[in-house]
């Protein structure tokens, strides 16, 4: 069936929310991120800051070197989460099928809403307009027959962009785009394409699938399909999600085990926090890594009982990391943790026979949630952590 998917992406979201509160910053380079001396990274940069070459995920120290006069603000995640909820309330006027990718980005399947509210394009324009007039924020919107194309469409005319790609225009839309637009290609992949003399998606489409296979392994299939604008993945609202996962692609491939362990702790905490927020507990912990050659490995472990406890998820993931990955550990370009196998959650119901330790960990998480709610995520971190923040 022909679907209509919207990708709504808030422009420089954290920075825009801060600037909305302090209009005097409007024209200044604004960075939201962790302090440089704590190895913080940029969470968001205003467009004025981006002109200096600053982008998100860049170490704050680097950003401040590029633009010493930039205004650095600490992230207020709990506030962004509130604003994000207001944005989602606008989405909910048009469809219940909303898949949030992060606080500032979501896919909407409006296929079933078109009879009520008009074409996908009309719905996209209304949502963008309502976000602007009601919340004073700017969003870029892409409308397309699938998630992949919708995401590119929202990005291509950013900021304040609106691009609708009709089903019969998908190929014409994709062909001239650089191959780097394909999901998961990144810098390393771009270099491979450069060697092969492939610059655009159209050229990739004309390339032999067999040769692609040699260079990209199993990933070739996916590239091939994406290049043809084929992406059947459904929009999965988190309510019905069968797993909750968090992953990060590193700017440079990493093989330092200490750094990777620190990332595991951070990812576990994020996944556990999302589980708790949705009142879910999962029994299966999955570790996902992507190597320099794009091959993706996943390793999973099933726990004795469902959990939403950061430390249990971290330990399971760490066990998989230490014992189930190839040795010596190749450099990783992506690291992710997912939890699935949801059980009926008991909310905050305490257990009579829970080991005292489990109870203690659960309370630590509860305290961290409360602090995060009040002061923002990252204001309280577990010892030994050296991730972003």
């Amino acid at each position, binding site marked *: 069936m022909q679907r209509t998917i919207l990708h709504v992406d808030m422009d420089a979201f954290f920075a825009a929310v801060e600037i909305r509160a302090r209009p005097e910053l409007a024209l200044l380079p604004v960075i939201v991120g962790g302090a440089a001396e704590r190895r913080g990274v940029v969470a968001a940069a205003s467009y004025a800051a981006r002109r200096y070459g600053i982008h998100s995920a860049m170490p704050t120290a680097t950003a401040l070197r590029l633009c010493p006069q930039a205004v650095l603000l600490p992230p207020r995640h709990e506030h962004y989460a509130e604003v994000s909820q207001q944005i989602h309330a606008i989405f909910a006027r048009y469809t219940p099928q909303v898949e949030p990718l992060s606080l500032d980005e979501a896919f909407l399947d409006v296929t079933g809403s078109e009879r009520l509210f008009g074409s996908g394009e009309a719905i996209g324009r209304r949502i963008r307009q309502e976000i602007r007039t009601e919340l004073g924020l700017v969003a870029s919107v892409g409308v397309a027959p699938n998630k992949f194309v919708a995401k590119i469409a929202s990005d291509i005319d950013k900021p304040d962009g609106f691009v609708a790609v009709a089903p019969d225009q998908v190929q014409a839309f994709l062909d001239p785009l650089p191959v780097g637009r394909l999901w998961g290609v990144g810098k390393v992949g771009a270099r491979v394409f450069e060697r092969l003399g492939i610059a655009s998606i159209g050229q990739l489409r004309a390339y032999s699938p067999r040769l692609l296979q040699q260079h990209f392994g199993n990933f070739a299939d996916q590239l091939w399909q994406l290049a043809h604008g084929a992406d059947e993945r459904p929009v999965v609202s988190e309510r019905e999600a069968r797993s909750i996962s968090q992953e990060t692609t590193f700017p440079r491939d990493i093989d330092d085990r200490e750094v990777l362990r620190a990332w595991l702790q951070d990812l576990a905490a994020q996944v556990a926090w999302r589980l708790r927020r949705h*009142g879910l507990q999962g029994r299966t912990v999955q570790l996902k890594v992507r190597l320099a050659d794009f091959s993706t490995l996943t390793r999973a472990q099933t726990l004795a*009982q469902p959990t939403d406890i950061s430390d249990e998820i971290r330990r399971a993931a760490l066990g998989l990391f230490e014992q189930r990955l190839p040795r010596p550990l190749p450099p990783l370009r992506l690291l992710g943790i997912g939890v699935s196998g949801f059980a009926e959650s*008991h*909310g*905050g*119901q*305490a*257990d*009579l*026979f829970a080991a005292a330790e489990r109870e203690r960990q659960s*309370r630590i998480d*509860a305290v961290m949630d409360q602090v995060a709610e009040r002061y923002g995520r990252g204001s309280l971190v577990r010892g030994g952590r050296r991730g972003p923040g």
Partner: protein
Amino acid sequence: MKFTISREALLKPLQVVGGVVEKRQTLPILANVLVQVANGKLTLTGTDLEVELTATATVENGTDGEITLPARKFNDICRALPDQAVVEVSIDGDKAVIRSGKSRFSLSTLPATEYPATEGVAGAFRLSMAQEVLKGLIDQTQFCMANQDVRYYLNGMLLEMKGGQLRTVATDGHRLAISETDSPEVAGEERQVIIPRKGVLELSRLLGDGEAQCELTVGSNHIRVALGEVVMTSKLVDGRFPDYERVVPKAGDRLVTADRHVLRQALQRTSILSNEKYRGIRLQFDQNLLRATVNNPEQEEAEEEVEISYDGAEFEIGFNVSYLLDALNVVKQDQVVLSMTDANSSCLIYGAGDKNSRYVVMPMRL
């Protein structure tokens, strides 16, 4: 095998044993009821391999023998016959023939030798007591049993003999119920068995409220309870029940006494607007006053104030309101005591002056 019996005399035992025969069976024979005639006595047996029920009746003109018949159809046929009908059952080849007045039914059979009936109960300890006593022990605790929990040993009820007492304990991991009674018969005996959930529910259904006696035979793998014409035999859960005594709190320093009916009705009303899934309720205790509040995802709220007897410091604690109501429903006394320590520790509930039944409810973080 052949026997004649009145419809009513047959229907009663047939319905008792039919209750345990499940509709969808993996083994065809488990959909059947075992019919045995010996010495003018008819014995019917139904089983699901976990719980077995037998019921007996007296027959006329019986010739000994045994066979199995499809339980559902046999039952439906008997029920459909007119009142006071006389039923004759006989075997004809591999069919059973049921005759009554101008009706005739030919039912398929399976040989009785294939029927998985329980043999004797091994390693048994026997005791007898009034049915109402056993029913009391079960009904005071059975609502706390877990249902399909992965901790399979919680999907049942602990029956314990210790220190001259007979005790039942049930828990789903969030709350726990204990009920006990002095029993000179178990003096010197120390034994713990877990009766599976289904066995407990059957037993509660079968036991009467009167002083009629029941005989318990507690073995190492089975428990058998004989109630006159009906005998229930249940497998035991092969597992270790958690150390429940460890989780029963000592008297806390926050002691609340309330009128059970008033408290129950107040909680019942507030529970209407609680979160349907988690059923959270917030209890705020102050000098002789309890304020109970709930809210739900639809932003609806309910609040009740209840006069209580309490003179400790002000404090607040959350619970699953259903767990509190379940306990308040089985407490018999008019005054109920809630004994608490802090918002993270369990609450002990018992009827004022009642030494025999206690309830432990873990709090809920709200």
